[in-house]
């Protein structure tokens, strides 16, 4: 615990009132503008789940166009276009741009860092709250203006022309206001939204780092922290050091668009018969700065899920995590290497070929720590006593899908192969496998695993199993064929690939994928329904429904203000499942807060348990 409580921190009032005073905090303060990390975490969780729906609806619209090009889209089409529902090419561009922006900036990043980071960090390290609760609250409320900006960008460019430069928003398409319908106000609002999301993440990350460094419970040394905390810590570092670069680049792009500067605009470019540009900048600079953030960002979108899955797997297999320290080191290695591989997105971009070789080598190397983690997960399950519930299934799905997604990354890391694969559906397959296949399955597992801690109730396992099965089938049905599309040479971001004769025969496959995507979409309602139902009507549980070890399980479910009824002290690592110590007290788990068990007792139980 922090030994100092600096004056300018504002959570002093939290302790002054005891639990009995809770009802005095008004509804608004308690549930809306709350500074309590748990409430903020749950706010983030609910918001991102809704945003998943929005992003998914956009994805389905994309899929509709690919399966039934230029045909009126039922339901969604009418909502989106307000007309018959035909998707115009510029509308299609906007659809995938917003789909990706919503999914990445409003779903994946906030659900990992915002929802679980917030909820779990103080609980798992035994703190009563975050270091800066007010900043924490602001980081959530920054999401709303961001969402508003994204929403405005939907409509700012006229009926069907939203931001049209993809989520990567490469200049000059994004830098020149007349480059495309939607490159005008819509793109600007999109950039504002991006910047606001950036502020939110930045506030969050500084907060997390401070909390993890300074507010751990007594005995919670760095190497006794659960891997979730490690992953959140490393993610926060990545955010803190990579994000400002994107923010700066975003400001430069906004300035290019609105103030006549020319960081990314070379001279003499004529777009849409406008006057030639004056300038002297270089468009490639944006790509470098963008990927300098966005490559680390893909690990920001993965590491926390890796951490949480490690925790959950270990618990569900009743076995210590295989290779705790290698897991920590490999996450650090991923983070470190993650800073020097960004160029693999630019192999064909006309960058200096010498850089291509460098980036290719470092990209290959980043597969190593991922390999270590993968094998360690398998090692963790190996010899464990698996509890075969939906939570475990989602974790196993995570590992399995991560392998697929990671391995397709190897093809693209090979520069010559990437010459062919760049900007084809092979890439799209790759990142949906890592983003949806891994991260979201990890998140599904995490939601169900920590649900009892959030609400004191359990989610329904049968429904969850159905959700998993349908999602898994739908997911693979949607995205596995994308590899084949990529190999067949279908470029991404095409509103109508079938215009090209050599892609015509891919239509049936695309239709199959779309049907699978709808299946997957429908399956998400099971998750939402299960979640909503269980919040109010789920089976009530006690503090530790999973017989897990972490500090959070020694707190009440749901934890009150200030989290712990007894200030926790940590005595051991987080993964001591089935240890001799645990067996000595007749369990297969032993809470981190459990004082050390007598050596004699252990010896006694050891002889009893001899095989």
């Amino acid at each position, binding site marked *: 615990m922090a030994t*100092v409580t600096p004056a300018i921190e504002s959570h002093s009032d939290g302790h002054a009132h005891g639990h009995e005073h809770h009802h005095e905090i008004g509804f608004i303060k308690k549930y809306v503008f709350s500074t309590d990390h748990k409430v903020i975490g749950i706010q983030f969780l609910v918001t991102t789940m809704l945003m998943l729906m929005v992003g998914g609806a956009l994805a389905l619209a994309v899929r509709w166009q690919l399966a039934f090009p230029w045909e009126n889209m039922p339901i969604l089409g009418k909502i989106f276009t307000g007309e018959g529902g035909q998707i115009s090419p510029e509308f299609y561009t906007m659809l995938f741009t917003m789909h990706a922006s919503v999914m990445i900036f409003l779903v994946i990043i906030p659900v990992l860092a915002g929802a679980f980071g917030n909820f779990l960090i103080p609980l798992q390290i035994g703190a009563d709250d975050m270091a800066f609760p007010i900043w924490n609250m602001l980081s959530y409320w920054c999401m709303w203006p961001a969402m508003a900006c994204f929403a405005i960008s939907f409509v700012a460019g006229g009926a069907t022309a939203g931001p049209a430069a993809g989520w990567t928003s490469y200049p000059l398409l994004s830098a020149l206001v007349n480059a495309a319908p939607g490159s005008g106000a819509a793109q600007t609002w999109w950039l504002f939204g991006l910047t606001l999301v950036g502020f939110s993440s930045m506030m969050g990350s500084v907060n997390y780092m401070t909390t993890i460094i300074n507010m751990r419970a007594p005995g919670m040394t760095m190497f006794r922290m659960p891997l979730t905390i490690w992953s959140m810590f490393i993610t926060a570092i990545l955010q803190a050091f990579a994000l400002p*670069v994107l923010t700066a680049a975003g400001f430069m792009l906004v300035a290019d668009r609105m103030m006549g500067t020319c960081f990314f605009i070379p001279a*003499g470019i004529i777009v849409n018969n406008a006057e030639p540009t004056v300038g*002297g900048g270089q468009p490639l600079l944006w790509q470098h700065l963008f990927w300098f953030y966005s490559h680390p960002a893909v690990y920001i979108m993965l590491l926390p899920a890796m951490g949480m899955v490690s925790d959950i797997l270990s618990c569900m297999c009743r076995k210590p995590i295989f290779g705790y320290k290698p897991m920590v080191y490999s996450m650090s290695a991923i983070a470190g290497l993650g800073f*020097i591989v960004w160029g693999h997105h630019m192999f064909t971009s006309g*960058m200096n070929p010498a*850089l291509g070789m460098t980036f290719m080598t470092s990209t290959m190397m980043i597969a190593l720590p991922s390999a270590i983690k993968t094998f360690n997960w398998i090692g963790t399950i190996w010899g464990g006593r698996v509890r075969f519930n939906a939570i475990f299934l989602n974790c196993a799905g995570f590992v399995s899908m991560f392998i697929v997604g990671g391995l397709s990354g190897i093809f693209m890391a090979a520069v010559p192969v990437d010459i062919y694969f760049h900007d084809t559906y092979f890439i799209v397959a790759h990142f949906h496998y890592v983003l949806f296949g891994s991260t979201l399955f990890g998140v599904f597992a995490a939601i169900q695993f920590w649900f009892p801690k959030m609400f004191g109730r359990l989610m329904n396992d049968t429904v969850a199993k159905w959700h998993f099965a349908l999602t898994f089938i739908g997911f693979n049905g949607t995205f596995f064929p994308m590899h084949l599309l990529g190999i067949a040479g279908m470029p991404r971001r095409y509103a109508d690939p079938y215009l090209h004769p050599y892609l015509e025969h891919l239509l049936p496959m695309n239709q199959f994928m779309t049907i699978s995507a709808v299946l997957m979409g429908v399956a998400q309602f099971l998750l939402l329904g299960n979640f909503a139902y269980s919040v109010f009507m789920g089976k009530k549980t006690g503090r530790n429904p999973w017989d897990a070890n972490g500090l959070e399980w020694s707190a009440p479910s749901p934890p009150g203000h200030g989290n712990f009824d007894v200030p926790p002290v940590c005595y051991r690592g987080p993964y001591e499942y089935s240890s001799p110590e645990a067996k000595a007290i007749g369990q297969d788990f032993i809470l981190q807060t459990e004082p050390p068990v007598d050596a004699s007792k252990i010896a006694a139980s050891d002889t009893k348990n001899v095989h």
Partner: protein
Amino acid sequence: MAHDDHSAHHVNYLAVFAALCIFTGLSVLFDVLSFENRMITIVLVLAIAVAKAMSVMMFFMHLKFEGNWKFVLLAPTTILAIGLPIALLPDIGVKYYTTLAPQDGVWGAEMEELDAAHHGGGEHSKSEDAHAAPADDHKAPEADAHKA
């Protein structure tokens, strides 16, 4: 308490302050002197900037008296801060492909004439500046540079 520790270290802030002022004076001086080789000025001026930065961080920001966390915190940022420009250099700085910026290409000849005419020829070395290899870019416009 943390900050009580620092107060124990008595830094002569005035001396640091004086040093900073002298450094600033030096950089202006180097600029006014404008050495034959522009590189010398650049190196000197940047070295001074680093020295100034170091003294501000060490004494004003008390880093000299902080624990080892300062290295953990500052090492990655420093590496990244130096590494980013270095990594961008081969691509943005040194151009591997031909560029067709009108400034370098089409307009080049035009500019040369212009500069000769505008500055009565030779008075400025600017026209060379514009077209010489990048390495020569920083040749000083000696004669009346920075008259303000």
